[in-house]
């Protein structure tokens, strides 16, 4: 048995230079300090992404991306296909957990100032990955073609349409027409299984490569002292795997006791039911738009809010260049405060959506 493994190793090593990669891997070290708990979240994002790819590919086998068959195909998966309920529920639950973990990963990197150069590119690719995964969520949500997702999509794209000049064009491109229709399912499906995965592979590849090349960032102040470092292989990865096992169990429990609902099939001629809201990770923006007054000076409130988000996002993305102090390895509590305000804003707005739905 051992002989066989050795022979196989020699075969692949001579072609793929596995031993040299192995040498590099052995050298990879992870600093251990009181905040190193947050290092796990990147790996968790990756693990959850793999789960999404696998369950997504499996769902592709039975899902039909047309207005007439989408809902029925999901119903078929949930009731007739063996373990179809499990694959589908895992995909839906993991999507939400993944986006939550991405936020945790992003904020922990922010507060640890891991964005400071030379890791600014890691931060920027990460920011785009956040946008891509939110787009994954938005496009995937429509695919079961049920009442909630149909109207949430309509409301969401209506908001996009309000942007001056480019709004209508963007909305039309995204929807494949003037309104949410059969063409929209096809387009969202195209985005969800082809375009977004393509960009993810590229950006994620760059993101992970950068982490490998540059190593893990240490909090400011610690980089001077000699910090305890553990090897990535096998110490850190085993702990990583332990975390993954716990998450896997959590997903299993959620899927068995709270399987994802089918809902009612969308009727494009029906009137919008009350209380339509998007998935939770969009609700902070949604509620902001609801609260903003209709007019601020001479500007329309909604458009002002949308521009606010765009500018806010831009600032967030460019933080590595704005936070000069951290770039010089000096603590920047001002930016920590800024990050805290943004975090609280998101949390409060999200909570408000559910606690006071009738704003």
């Amino acid at each position: 048995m051992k002989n066989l493994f050795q022979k196989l190793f020699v075969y692949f090593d001579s072609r793929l230079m596995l031993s040299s990669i192995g040498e590099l891997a052995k050298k990879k070290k992870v600093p251990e300090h009181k905040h190193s708990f947050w290092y796990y979240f990147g790996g968790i994002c990756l693990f959850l992404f793999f789960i999404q790819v696998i369950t997504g590919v499996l769902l592709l086998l039975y899902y039909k991306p047309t207005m007439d068959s989408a809902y029925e195909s999901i119903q078929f998966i949930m009731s007739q296909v063996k373990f179809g309920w499990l694959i589908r529920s895992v995909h839906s639950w993991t999507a939400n957990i993944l986006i939550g973990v991405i936020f945790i990963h992003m904020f922990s990197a922010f507060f640890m100032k891991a964005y400071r150069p030379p890791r600014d590119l890691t931060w920027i690719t990460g920011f785009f990955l956040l946008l891509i995964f939110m787009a994954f969520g938005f496009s995937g949500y429509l695919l079961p073609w049920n009442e909630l997702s149909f109207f949430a999509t309509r409301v969401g794209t209506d908001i996009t349409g309000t942007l001056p000049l480019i709004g209508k064009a963007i909305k039309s491109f995204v929807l494949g027409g003037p309104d949410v229709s059969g063409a929209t399912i096809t387009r969202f499906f195209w985005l969800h299984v082809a375009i977004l995965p393509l960009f993810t592979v590229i950006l994620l590849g760059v993101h992970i490569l950068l982490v490998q090349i540059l190593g893990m960032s240490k909090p400011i102040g610690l980089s001077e002292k000699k910090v305890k470092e553990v090897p990535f292989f096998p110490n850190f990865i085993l702990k990583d795997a332990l975390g993954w096992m716990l998450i896997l169990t959590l997903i299993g429990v959620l899927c068995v006791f709270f399987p994802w609902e089918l809902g009612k099939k969308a009727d494009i001629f029906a009137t919008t039911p009350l209380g339509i809201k998007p998935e939770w990770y969009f609700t902070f923006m949604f509620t902001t738009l609801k609260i903003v007054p209709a007019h601020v000076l001479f500007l329309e409130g909604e458009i002002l809010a949308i521009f606010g988000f765009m500018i806010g996002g831009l600032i967030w993305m460019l933080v590595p260049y704005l936070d000069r102090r951290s770039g010089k390895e000096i603590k920047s509590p001002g930016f920590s405060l800024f990050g805290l305000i943004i975090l609280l804003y998101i949390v409060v707005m999200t909570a408000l959506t559910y606690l006071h739905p009738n704003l």
Partner: protein
Amino acid sequence: MKKRYKKNILFELCVYLSFIFILHPNALADGCVDCHREMDEGLKAPAEAFQMDVHQKYGLSCTTCHGGDPGQEDIDLAKDDSFKGAPLRKDIPKFCGSCHSDSLYMRRYNPNLRVDQLELYWTSQHGQLLSKGDTKVAVCTDCHGAHGILESSHPKSLSFPWNIPDMCGKCHSDKEYMKGYSISVTQIEDYKQSVHAHALFEKKDLSAPVCNDCHGNHGAIPPEVSSIAFVCRQCHPSAGELFSESPHKAAYDELEISECEACHGNHKILPPSDEMLGTGEGAVCIECHDSDSEAYAVAATIKQKLDSFKSKMQDAEDKLERADRQGVEVSEVKFRLQEAHTILIQVRNLTHSFSLDRIEEKIEEGQGVIEEVAEAGEAALREAKFRKRGLIVATLFIFLLALALLLKIRQIEKQSPQ
């Protein structure tokens, strides 16, 4: 030369203008309306209301009914020999009928309209009493209005289905007004509690019956005992046919009991409940049948069979609900259950035949469906159990792996202290 030319133009203009005024029909009508608009409330109202009137749409005017000369500004000159004024209450039917019973005249405006309303009216209770001199009864204007008359198909019309109960109720619910007539004043109130009123007012189902559907439009008269069944059968033919085939038909005819009304009432027709069947409290069967009669036994059996069918259906439904709550997809099975519901409706309808055989046959059919559903429900519950067991197994393996990882981590950390 030029001055004369101008004068001629002016003169011709005046002639043309006066022709316009003389020939244009509305210009004629405007004469009446213009004056009446300036008057007090009582005389102003007809002129205002007439703007919406259906007669106005057809090009008719004040003078068409009231005569007079609209071109005159002076009141006395306007009320010339042709002026008819407002008719007396007792003359209103003849007044309206002077056009509406004339088929040649009505054909010019709307050939679809009936022309027998006046004829029918005289056969109605209202018409008969009016011809005897009672002017308290309803005449045309009470139900259709006088000047703002709308087509009955217009939702704001007094004779639009959901306005009819209150319109009839204006008199028929007024205790003071109805003193001296030997009929009750609770019909409208009773009707409003009925299933027909619910369908009309809540569900906006315009096919639901209102007063005129059972009592007639212009020939309004309470249906007699023998004819009330025909009234109900217009919309409930199946129940009626089954009843006619049953032993009750002959019995009711002989005893002169009104068919549907005996069990279901006339105005306060409530949604029938299964408690009306059988021999328990609230059952209608025991109102006639003694406890030692064969009919009593049949009634009891029918009720018992229906109850057992319903409880089996409920059991199957409960199973599905439980499985659904546990996350198992049962929408296809629920579809099959719908068939059982349809059969239940058919069984309930069959009670009008009072035939135990026919009812049992239908219930048998339904049992088959329910058995299928119950089986599927059981399977769904088994699936729910299987999922939980599967989760435990998988979690066990994952925990073992986690434990193994933990041990391995400890071992490695002990080996290479850093």
